[in-house]
């Protein structure tokens, strides 16, 4: 499949977000869990997206998270606690996890999509409990 960012971004915005992540945290206020402050998506994983959009802003990147870190994440975590959810390959998630540590955040949920290298995940403040 050829990746077309504009089409898939719209599709992502209107119809989908991280599959289990979206299902569990984005649109379920009755569970007492907040929507994520930011959703992060590697453009190369966009075909794995399913579920419901929680209305959180979406940040895109392709492989290297450096621009995302400089542009958004650094400030987000400097400003305090924040929950982010997303889909990426393992190396990008590793980078996010390491950067999250410095802000006292951790991966609270992750799920590798069978047959792919894509991972759905949620990173939240370290004291967060009771995700999946």
């Amino acid at each position, binding site marked *: 499949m050829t990746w077309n960012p504009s089409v898939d971004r719209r599709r992502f915005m209107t119809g989908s977000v991280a599959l289990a992540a979206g299902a569990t945290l984005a649109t379920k206020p009755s569970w007492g869990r907040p929507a994520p402050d930011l959703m992060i998506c590697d453009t190369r994983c966009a075909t794995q997206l399913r579920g419901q959009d929680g209305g959180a802003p979406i940040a895109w990147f392709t*492989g290297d998270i450096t621009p995302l870190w400089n542009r958004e994440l650094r400030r987000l975590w400097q400003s305090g606690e924040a929950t982010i959810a997303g889909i990426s390959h*393992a190396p990008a998630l590793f980078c996010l996890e*390491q950067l999250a*540590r410095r802000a006292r955040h951790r991966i609270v949920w992750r799920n590798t999509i069978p047959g792919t290298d894509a991972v759905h995940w949620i990173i939240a403040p*370290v004291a967060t409990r009771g995700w999946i």
Partner: protein
Amino acid sequence: MHIPPGVKPADFQAALKAFAKAIGTEWVFTSDEDVDLYRDAFSPLVGEPDERFASAAVAPASTEEVQAIVRIANRYRIPIYPISTGKNLGYGGSAPAYSGSVVVDLKRMNRILEVDERNASVLVEPGVSYFDLYNHLRAQGSRLWIDCPDPGWGSVVGNAIDRGGGYTMASYRNHFDSHCGMEVVLPDGELLRTGMGALPGSKTWQQYKSGCGPWVDGIFSQGNYGIVTKMGFWLMPEPEAYLRAIIRVPRYKDLIPLVDILNKLENMRIVTGFPDIATPLLGYPPTGQVQVFLEGNAGYVMTPEHKSLLAKAVQGYSPELEAFGIANEIPYWELWVSFYGPFEVIDAQWQATQRHFSAIQGARFKVVERMGMPVDLARIEDYHEPEFGVPSLRAFSIGARSPFNPSPSKGHMWFSPIIPRTGEAIFEANRVFSEAAKDLGMPLFGSFTMPSCFWERSFIFILATPVTTDAETNRRYVAGFRKLIEVGAQHGWGEYRTAPVFQKQVMDAYSFNGHALHKLHETLKDALDPNGILAAGRYDIWPRHLRKPSR
């Protein structure tokens, strides 16, 4: 909750209470979730009894708070282990060398205290990352460059103290060598400033390194004699222009004069940028371009005949392979060189460089890039960012699945012996380590390994040993790594840096005159840290009460 070994639970609780009083309850971390953040992400001992754990962590915000923590640790005999950002992955990360230590996380000490544009220097705290410093300089409109490693999320201070390296001009690439002045909290809580910083009201703390009398800064690198709370660095003024070029030579033995001429040109400050040796005939890109190759944007495409000849080569050589390369104009070796400065200077340096390398028969030359600075940040991904003083995390794309890396590992351990800066040493190291790796069943090599050229006077023969999710495989690789250390030492090659799990063995190899160096380390430890509270075991320097009569 873990309790530091040898510490009574009541004393530990009292210490935690005292830490909280000194720096605030919210900055004393004891929950499992918090303490887990300090595990070494690349530990080959994950899940094993020997994995290093913290018992708790504290995050002071000032030098005074560090002093308070150190004094409390002395009062209750609590082992503490300072980290700056804890990103020393492959060399131990944020986990303490002595399991059960309380990590002193300096991340909140993240102030950039001074930028001196005229002196091209900065004074920073240990929590300042390369990203922080880069962004600060850009926001200020500074025309100074940082020199950063791959990746750029680590601490400027921490990387220098661990003797890391970068990719710009030689005088900045060795991060410890490019520092100028320290502030250190000693193990008894006393505050020390080194170099000109020892002079009250000094005007030159970041201008002259050594002050007067014995220069002591070196003991605070890879040591456990103090917690560095401020450190000055010399930065590189943004050059007017940049030139990158390649020298290609056709024959196997050409590597020897190629390195010799490079050394001469570097030592005369004619070649000023990061040199990088690659081997198109053997299919290996230059170190600084690895991620570009792995991302599939470049690469050496081999014909079936080429692959077949390569498979039959022994340690990267056969007469047939060499003849194939010459016939098809595929160079055996490529030396990537770069120059920073005004156009008229870098053009002249490149001319002189070509003249020197022309002594090698069949040498060919190509300019890859010649451009004015500042670099176009919109195009920065076309380059190896650190060569332009731009920090990045792109190196982690090496870890992604790709044609070059079909089975990504969980992490890696760096085996990093220093070898002579000669072509002969490259050949010998390849022979010795490839034979050892084969015997050990370790997946270290392709057909040839090229050294890294961070330092001007020596090579680092860096090998990444994978860390997997399988404990048995990791045990085998750890045993193999130990064997490589032994083999290296037998050939006169010692490592420049290593993870805590290997520090004893590496330091054991530095055994001249009955381990005289180690004895001095212990003498210093006893004098400066009689209670043995600070970073016990770091580089195998143990306080008296934890020392084993092993040597």
